[in-house]
């Protein structure tokens, strides 16, 4: 008996198996000697080698060698220029890798083609040459610390060393995300052993290909393969040879990794974060509220809420020209409009069931609670807006375009709902009068939010954002400081002063 996957029913043309790995370190004979398997993701067959500890050892050894040869001593600005040229290639709609991504990623992920196309374009713009300069400037007062010792504020010298090799566990929820990890590692002169995600393993491979086309040397500093998460022997082999490990993963996978990364090796986890929006009364003016609703609808709908940047909840201030209920209705209308233009991905049964369950739960509550209302697409689960006047807590969305609207009297009312989640909060999209922005940002920051942006821009963080509250680059480097006193003291040992013709105590007296 065949159990049908709904996505297998889509009528797209079958495609030939695509190689979803990037291994410039291996020659043809070595590649042929590997055991290969083909996995179907969505309706796309993806081919890759079976990853063993032995393969990882070989890859790490060659990645380390490449890093020493072509990356360790390359000036940071040269690396930046190269990455900038790679990203510029992706702005060309005819770039073969971009065309492959636009053709296959919708079929792999189920996201609407238009959403993938725009999403990739907007995301990659974050890494244009001018924005890369911002990345560096955000984390380093003087980016030349990556090339050599530079004066520091304490009166000495400092130099930042990136990892020689970083094992990076990539996310698969939002296409394009691994570009962030790959670019950050290159900027601090680290090679990357990338573990691609089961749900979307192709993008990092395509991106790495363009790096190699632009600069084959840099390409040899990147390897991308897929292995099942939690394969302890493989990961042990990788971690033992890495100077850092990053992971964009769920809570359990992150905990598991954190236990296994050797002590002393920096572990930089990204993920398991939630975001939300706050709409002030000023944004509910008769001339503004529809546009505000459209922006919020876009934030919710983009990538079907799968990203950590997507809002789960919208807090709407009372006292505006339209009340929160009317705003919720406008939001629902805009969610519907977005669905017409960029339909949500088809869901697995379990995902559909989760949306249905939340709808039912709130519908039943609305019988006895006039403060609860469900506005939803029908038939089907394309989008759902739930109004809840008195939430017990900040309840996470089951994702896939389900958003709760909570009316509030003031931002202060939001604080008790945010505090229990303070370790998990990420982006707050805000819409308010200019004079309130600073006060709101202060309050939100105190609650744990690490990014405040305008509604409508939640899915596109600006270059240089302290990703999840840390420096994207600073989190990867270690520092070596030369103390100012050492500089002075070594003068003692200047051979000029230690020659017998001088008195023994003359050093330093200049």
């Amino acid at each position, binding site marked *: *008996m065949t159990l049908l996957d709904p996505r297998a029913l889509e009528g797209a043309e079958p495609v030939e198996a695509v190689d979803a790995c990037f291994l410039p370190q291996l020659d043809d004979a070595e590649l042929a000697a590997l055991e290969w398997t083909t996995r179907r993701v969505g309706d796309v067959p993806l081919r890759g080698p079976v990853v063993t500890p032995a393969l990882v050892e070989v890859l790490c050894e060659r990645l380390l060698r490449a890093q020493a040869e072509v990356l360790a001593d390359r000036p940071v600005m040269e690396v930046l220029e190269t990455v900038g040229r790679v990203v510029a290639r992706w702005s060309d709609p005819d770039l073969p890798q971009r065309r492959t991504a636009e053709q296959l990623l919708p079929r792999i992920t189920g996201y609407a083609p238009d959403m993938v196309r725009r999403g990739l374009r907007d995301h990659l713009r974050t890494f244009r040459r001018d924005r890369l300069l911002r990345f560096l400037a955000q984390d380093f007062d003087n980016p030349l610390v990556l090339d050599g010792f530079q004066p520091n504020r304490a009166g000495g010298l400092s130099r930042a060393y990136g990892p020689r090799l970083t094992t990076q566990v990539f996310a698969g*929820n*939002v296409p394009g995300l691994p570009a962030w990890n790959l670019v950050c590692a290159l900027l601090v002169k680290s090679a990357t052993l990338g573990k691609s995600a089961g749900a979307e393993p192709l993008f990092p491979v395509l991106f790495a290909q363009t790096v190699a086309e632009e600069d084959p040397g840099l390409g040899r500093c990147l390897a991308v393969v897929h292995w099942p998460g939690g394969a302890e022997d493989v990961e042990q082999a990788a971690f033992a040879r890495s100077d850092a490990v990053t992971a964009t993963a*769920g809570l359990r996978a992150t905990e598991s990794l954190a236990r296994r990364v050797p002590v002393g090796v920096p572990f930089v986890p990204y993920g*398991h*974060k939630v975001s939300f929006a706050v709409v002030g009364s000023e944004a509910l003016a008769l001339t503004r509220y529809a546009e505000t609703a459209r922006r919020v609808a876009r934030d919710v709908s983009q990538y079907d809420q799968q990203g950590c940047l997507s809002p789960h909840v919208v807090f709407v201030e009372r006292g505006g020209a339209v009340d929160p209920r009317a705003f919720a209705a406008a939001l629902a209308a805009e969610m519907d409009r977005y669905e017409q233009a960029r339909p949500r991905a088809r869901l697995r*049964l379990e*995902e559909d069931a989760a949306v249905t369950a939340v709808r039912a739960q709130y519908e039943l509550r609305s019988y006895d609670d006039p403060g609860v209302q469900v506005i939803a697409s029908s038939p089907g689960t394309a989008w759902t807006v739930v109004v809840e006047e008195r939430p017990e807590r900040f309840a996470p969305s089951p994702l896939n375009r389900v958003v709760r609207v909570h009316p509030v009297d003031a931002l202060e009312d939001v604080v008790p709902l945010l505090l229990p989640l303070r370790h998990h909060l990420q982006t707050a999209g805000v819409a308010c009068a200019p004079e309130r922005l600073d006060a709101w940002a202060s309050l939100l920051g105190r609650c744990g939010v690490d990014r405040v942006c305008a509604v409508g821009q939640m899915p596109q963080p600006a270059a240089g954002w302290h990703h999840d509250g840390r420096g994207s680059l600073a989190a990867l480097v270690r520092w070596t400081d030369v103390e100012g006193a050492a500089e002075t003291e070594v003068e003692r040992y200047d051979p000029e002063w230690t020659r017998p013709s001088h008195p023994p105590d003359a050093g330093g007296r200049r």
Partner: protein
Amino acid sequence: MNGRSPTVPELGELDRRLLAWIEASAQTRDDGGPTQAQEAEFDRLALDLFADQYERNRPYRRYCRARGAEPGQVRGWREIPPVPLSAFRELTLSCAPPEQAAAVFTTSGSTDPGRRGRNHHPHLHLYDASLRTGFRQWFLPDRAQLRLLVLNPPPEQQPHSSLAYFLQRLVDSFGAAGSGTFVGAEGLDLDGLLAALAAAERDGVPVGLLGTSFAYVHLLDALEAAGTAFRLPPGSRVLDTGGFKGRSREVPAEALRTALGQRLGVPDAWCVNYYGMTEISTQYYDTSLRRAWLGRDPAPRVKAVPPWARVQAVDAGTGRPVPPGQRGLLVHHDLANRGSVLAVLAEDVGHLAEGGPAGGFVLLGRAQGSAARGCSLALDELLAANEGGRS
């Protein structure tokens, strides 16, 4: 509750018709599935029960109205709207004043008592008839009584557990001499159970073990640690239910049956799993034992739907039935679920066996909500974080 059938005022007319239908189905049941006349009678009973529940169950009435489903307009059991499980948490779905209920069974899933599902039973006559008829048909077709060894706490310890009540009623109704419960306040009474198994083996008296799946894992682990195995006499059998819910390591059903064969000497087909839940009043048994007893091939393993219930698999997004073989959420129409709502949308995934509802169904497990993709947070993970933040 003390395990005795509660005394209630005389049953109403509809209750008597339902009771007669359930009890008669033991005699009239054909392993080939319902006849046309039986299907028509099921429809009549379902619509009458729906009308009664619509009338007396206010929140359910509201739920039906929102879907344009009213008695008189609903023409067949398939059109009776199923309530999701959350309705048993959010609402009091009782057809009679809740305080007069003979039993209120609650789910065990949540730590927050206010968020537990509750199923109200004004009386348990239909519940008892359903459990007896099903058990006899699928677990005890060959004899009137059997020595039953229960690996689950008694109702005194768990007064609101439908499982504890269910198992105690089975012992009351079908338990031969030597039947007993082997879980107390201190947990599994392993010594007592081993003694009972040894006695059964020595005396050649077949036994039936009844319990949750994870209870057997604990038993099997203990037997393995002690290096002990039994060859229980022919006619011995095992009934298990439920998943593992973090109470023991997860063991696939096949592996559990293999281990039960090795450690207890119970043949594969005589290891029967049943599926039931607090929100309904019927149990669905594997057909393997009955088929083996009838001399038929016990495979494939499917769950039987008794004549007083219907099971559908539906699309989770639209609620529309999906064809046999295709995964869907399970919907129950259970005539024994007298006190609340006869139609229930479960959170379990399964598919109908080929041959339609009469062919039974295959239970695949719980719908686990949306799995976290990448850095988006899984629902349960965040809920756990949330609870942690509150404490």
